[in-house]
């Protein structure tokens, strides 16, 4: 008689809700107007980590909705045009979801290249949108000062993928 094998499934709380809440908390923390030793705190787009990692962990209907809400949270917190951060995050999510079959199981260096390309595309898209809306191109140096800290967050994305990649054996 064949024995039923238990399928280990990690629920959305662990890999979607909790990381989203943590990213919101970290964003609030970095929005504090304080200077430490004369330097301002960096302000990366922390949910970019989730937009890259979530489609690689497993496809989910909940993830894009949470990304939309995270984007709206960022827009309201930073007083950006409503929908700007959501478009940015969801564009990265869509690109990675479409190339998921290629990216699965790739080395960390390859993932970093894709993370960098996705992040740059998202930032270029938002730069164009803001330029068109405000009829005033933002400073490139300021743009780079936001891109670089976001790129440096890749280790968190890599850690998230490693942690939950095998969370559901059905998606191996």
């Amino acid at each position: 008689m064949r024995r039923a094998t238990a399928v280990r499934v990690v629920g959305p709380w662990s890999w979607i809700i909790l990381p989203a809440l943590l990213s919101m908390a970290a964003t609030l923390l970095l929005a504090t107007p304080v200077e430490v030793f004369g330097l301002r705190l960096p302000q990366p787009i922390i949910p970019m980590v989730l937009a890259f990692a979530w489609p690689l962990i497993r496809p989910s209907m909940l993830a894009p909705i949470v990304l939309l809400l995270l984007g709206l949270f960022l827009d309201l917190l930073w007083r950006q045009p409503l929908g700007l951060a959501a478009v940015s995050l969801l564009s990265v999510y869509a690109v990675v979801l479409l190339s998921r079959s290629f990216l699965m199981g790739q080395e960390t260096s390859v993932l970093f290249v894709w993370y960098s390309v996705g992040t740059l595309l998202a930032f270029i898209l938002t730069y164009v949108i803001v330029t068109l809306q405000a009829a005033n191109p933002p400073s490139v140096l300021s743009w780079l000062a936001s891109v670089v800290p976001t790129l440096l967050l890749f280790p968190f994305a890599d850690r998230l993928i490693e942690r939950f990649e095998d969370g559901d054996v059905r998606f191996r």
Partner: protein
Amino acid sequence: MAFRDGPFENLKVPVAWTAAGAAAVAIGAAVMLLLADSGSARAQTNNPVRSGFEATVGPVNGVFAWPVRFVGQVSDNVRGYFFAVSENRRLKRRIAELEPWRDQAIALKTINARYEAMLGVRTEPPVPLATGRSISDSRGPYANARLIDVGSARGVRIGNPVITEHGLVGRVIGTSSNVSRVLLLTDVASQTPIMVDRTDARAILKGDGSGNPRLEFIRGENPVQVGDRILTSGDGGGIPRGIPVGMAAKGVDGSWRVKLFNDRGPIDYVRVMLFQDFGQLTNPEALNAPPLAGFNTAPPPDLGAAPAARPTPAQPAAAPAARATTAPRPAATPPAGAPR
């Protein structure tokens, strides 16, 4: 017939497709929101959703920010401890430099007050201020704004200028009862009318997300030099004239930029100038009165007495006296709220 027994029993949609569908729906919603929230409206309107969010996130951010503020205070203390001697020397040198200026300022202030009294200059009345603390900060390339912990309960209104001890910071673009949103001079949506102190030339200070906003639409020939002091011009009536903004400098791209005075220190405590526009400096009833309201209409002519009342060449002195009875009388006292 149960649903399972129906034609959809064997219908299985790949999970990747459902995820892609959800992503497409979410992208569509985000694009619709983006189209609805244009850049110009963002800087000028007080959206109730934004106001509610800011009223909620303000206190929450205060709790989250406590450890960061603590680290900042520790760093300030450490720096103050190690640089106390050099700071003391610098301050003594600065006091020695500024003392002659203080004496000159007192003398000039006295002379200026006498000139104003002699000439009857209508100076602007003092603007009341509300002090608040910055509780949140956005420093990205697309938005430079701050939340401060004073709101409409303290009289803050949209459009009020915000200053620090160094100079202008920005203006209020959203308020709730206890929290306000300040659009900084460096935001891409910020445009402030300014003047060059040395030449009185006008220009527009346009933010671009960098620390040094651009000067655009500069009028005149060679109106700006490096190091010129930039002040608000008061044009348009949104911001009072003469608030310090910064110093002119040449950017790496060759454009004129302004090194902001408010970069000299962290923007922690700010003051909101409860200044709306020039309308508050005058009596609104006087402004809204119909033109020539002070002039009385001429009395109806008395045809029977007309030949007798007509002045003759022999009675020229009577005419000014007759006119004086119908001339408008100046108000005995200025209207309440009128500038002095």
